[in-house]
């Protein structure tokens, strides 16, 4: 908790900077608005105050976003399509389902790659190369193709979330399952352990730190996949759909509110995994 104070101060500085930036960016718009209203007797304080409370600002002030979040989350029924809880729940479902299948597939593939030698040599370069490809470009197409098979709603977005979380998990887990050093592997051999025993008693436990690290990356990637997929098929709702709707109608406050909700979801997922990681790794006596 040594870093709590510095973090707090940096956050406060960022908020202050945000207010200044919001005032500066919105002031020209507000000046035009005053001019249109025929007012020219406003003081600088009026101008700044009005700039920070515009309906469609270029950059909404933090308190406007908080007010919008409060209106859409606390003041609106969770089941209402206008509230953010409804949309966040859709995104969360897509993310979790996608992440579950993506991570399972990723771990399965890592185990397969590790146990079948020829597969590793032929497939691993492609899996690594696929990391350098902007995979997300496939998202709109996957949604449309699944649509042809009458797969709509949450499923296509979960597929994309799974797809995005699967690669980092595979790469991380292959690295993790290979992390025991030759000495330890030799020891297993002197015990005449079978490959399966080596896997269960040495490789799987040794891969735990890598497992949690790749889970974090995978969960974050799954959420990005779900949000981007929602942008490409926005009629089903979700945070990505809110982003798109906000950008169509110039509702900046709405965009920021959706963005903050997505950020909170992501931070919560990664935070939960981090917590689990710390608990488990401490029990397993990993030092760092």
């Amino acid at each position, binding site marked *: 908790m*040594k*870093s709590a104070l*510095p*973090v*707090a*101060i*940096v*956050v406060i500085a960022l908020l202050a900077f945000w207010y200044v930036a919001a005032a500066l960016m919105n002031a020209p718009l507000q000046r035009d608005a005053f001019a249109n209203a025929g007012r020219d007797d406003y003081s600088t304080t009026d101008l700044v105050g009005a700039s920070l409370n515009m309906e469609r600002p*270029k950059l909404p002030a933090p308190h406007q976003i908080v007010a919008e979040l409060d209106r859409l989350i606390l003041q609106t029924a969770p089941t209402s399509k206008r509230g953010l809880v409804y949309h966040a729940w859709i995104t969360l479902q897509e993310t979790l389902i996608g992440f579950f299948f993506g991570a399972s597939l990723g771990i399965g593939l890592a185990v397969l790659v590790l146990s079948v030698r*020829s597969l590793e*040599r*032929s*497939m*691993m*370069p*492609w899996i690594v*190369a696929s*990391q*350098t*490809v*902007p995979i*997300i*470009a*496939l998202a*709109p*197409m996957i*949604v*449309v*193709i699944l649509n*042809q098979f009458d797969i709509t709603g949450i499923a296509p977005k979960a597929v994309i979330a799974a797809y995005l979380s699967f690669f980092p998990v595979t790469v991380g887990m292959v690295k993790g399952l290979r992390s025991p050093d030759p000495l330890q592997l030799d020891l297993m051999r002197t015990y005449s352990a079978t490959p399966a025993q080596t896997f269960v008693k040495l490789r799987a436990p040794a891969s735990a730190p890598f497992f949690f690290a790749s889970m*974090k990356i995978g969960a*974050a990637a799954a*959420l*990005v996949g779900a*949000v*981007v997929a929602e*942008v*490409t098929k926005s009629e089903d709702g979700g*945070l*990505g759909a809110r*982003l*798109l709707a*906000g*950008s169509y109608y*110039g509702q*900046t406050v709405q*965009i*920021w509110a*959706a*963005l903050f909700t*997505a*950020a909170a979801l*992501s*931070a919560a997922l*990664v935070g939960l995994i981090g917590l689990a990681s710390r608990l488990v790794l401490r029990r397993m006596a990993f030092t760092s």
Partner: protein
Amino acid sequence: MNARTADLAPPLLFGAAVLALWEAGVRLLGVPAIILPAPSAIFLRLATSVPTLAADFVQTIQGVLAGYALGSAAGLAVAILIDRSPFLQRGLLPLGNLVSALPIVGIAPIMVMWFGFDWQSKAAVVVVMTFFPMLVNATAGLSSAGAMERDLMKTYAADYFQTLGKLRLPAALPFVFNALKINTTLAMIGAIVAEFFGTPTVGMGFRISTEVGHLSIDMVWATIFVAAVAGSSFYAIVSLIERRATFWHASYRGRES
């Protein structure tokens, strides 16, 4: 060279096998082209629409490169600036790590509003996406020089900037390049996704989203192919520069001792 070809053979064979299976599967099962076109159809489409694809590529890569350069440079600069203040480091690093896990591509609609439909707004998204990985990695890199080496610099009476230029920046290079490599992919993703939110009618992300709407899936695959080749070449170029830079670093030290 022989060993290299032996290394390359299995993945190439695997890739060829996948392509052959794909082609055969599409033809034998009669999969409609709007679901999955055959590789041959995709390459035909690629060959016949080179001008469109080239224009898209140029449009997108502008945003990618401008944003990548600005974001990475800013990340490195801030890392060097906060390096002298442990207080700022303790404050900024947890935030940087947090932001790295957030869905930053979501700021795309805001950037499109601020900077217009052209490549500048895409570059802005890329700047934000590439900034934090560089900040976190470069900060770790700057503290990677060992205590012994720092003491040596002190006994040479080297001032802060000499230590920075001759010891700590070179020692940070592997970390910086790690961030540069991560950022290549992030930059491509940022630029393409930002184009889903509005472009002048050109660009790879625009092409993908409109051609999906027209159900000309072969064109989508052709664009994805271009994006994949561009992404991996970008990564490969950075890795090549990394090898050069690290090589220079090692040889430099070799001459000194």
